[in-house]
């Protein structure tokens, strides 16, 4: 009886690595798409039931989460003490670009405080560790 010749196909290591590269690329792209964008407010989300929940920071409070200030613009009275809550792992600051207030470095998971200027006006502020993080304090 004649038997069919058996052909064993062996994948070359380079083929395996190339396939793995494609898999990793796909995974990273998928994770990048699904992750929370840094610029968006990090305090809203969906409950398992589908309802949208939005958490507003307490009055006179700036929350830092995912390298963004929430709210991005805060209005307070002159001289108000503002609590800064850093919910990131990385250190951040709340520093006025005109240096009228500065929280100093607030380590991850810690709280700090700034005092609003006594002169009404609009005060842009940044994080000196990550200068692309921007917020605005309006004193009126």
């Amino acid at each position, binding site marked *: 009886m004649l038997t069919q010749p058996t052909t064993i196909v062996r994948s070359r*290591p380079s083929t395996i*690595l190339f396939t*793995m*590269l494609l898999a990793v690329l796909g995974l990273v792209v998928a994770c990048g798409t699904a992750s929370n*964008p840094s610029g968006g407010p990090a305090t809203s989300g969906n409950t398992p039931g589908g309802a949208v929940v939005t958490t507003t920071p307490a009055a006179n409070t700036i929350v830092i989460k995912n*390298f963004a200030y929430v709210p991005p613009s805060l209005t307070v009275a002159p001289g108000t003490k503002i609590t800064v809550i850093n919910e990131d792992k*990385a250190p951040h600051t709340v520093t006025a670009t005109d240096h009228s207030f500065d929280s100093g470095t607030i380590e*991850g998971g810690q709280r700090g405080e700034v005092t609003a200027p006594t002169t009404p006006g609009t005060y842009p502020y940044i994080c000196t560790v990550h200068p*692309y993080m921007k917020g605005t304090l309006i004193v009126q």
Partner: protein
Amino acid sequence: MSPRPSAGELLARVVAAAGLGYDAYAHLDLASRFDANTAVISQGMLFRAETVLAVLAALGVLLTRWRAAVIFALLVAGSALGAVLLYRYVDVGVLGPLPNMYEPAWYPEKTLSAVAEAAAVLALAAQPLFGSEWRSPGSR
């Protein structure tokens, strides 16, 4: 070539792969937070690219005994370690298409990532000490 790698060589390869693996995880975890820091390419995209390269490098040193895989992994881990140290201590500014990634701070995830990269570099640099002959990709 040695028929089987020595225990020392195996241990070094596992250490290198683990270091590269944590490097990949940390960069992917942090990527979305750095999307806002951009020039031609964003820091977030660079972090995702590092993730892909680190995973590929880890697979290379685990699954093959190619010299090219060790050199590639050494370049990936070494460049990551060099970059994190450079941008921690030097305000490089925008460099061609690269954003200014100056971040004058250490925090646990970043520190651990740098330690993992350093461990990978040491483990990979030690590979020639094991005295085994290495394969080139074309050899059987």
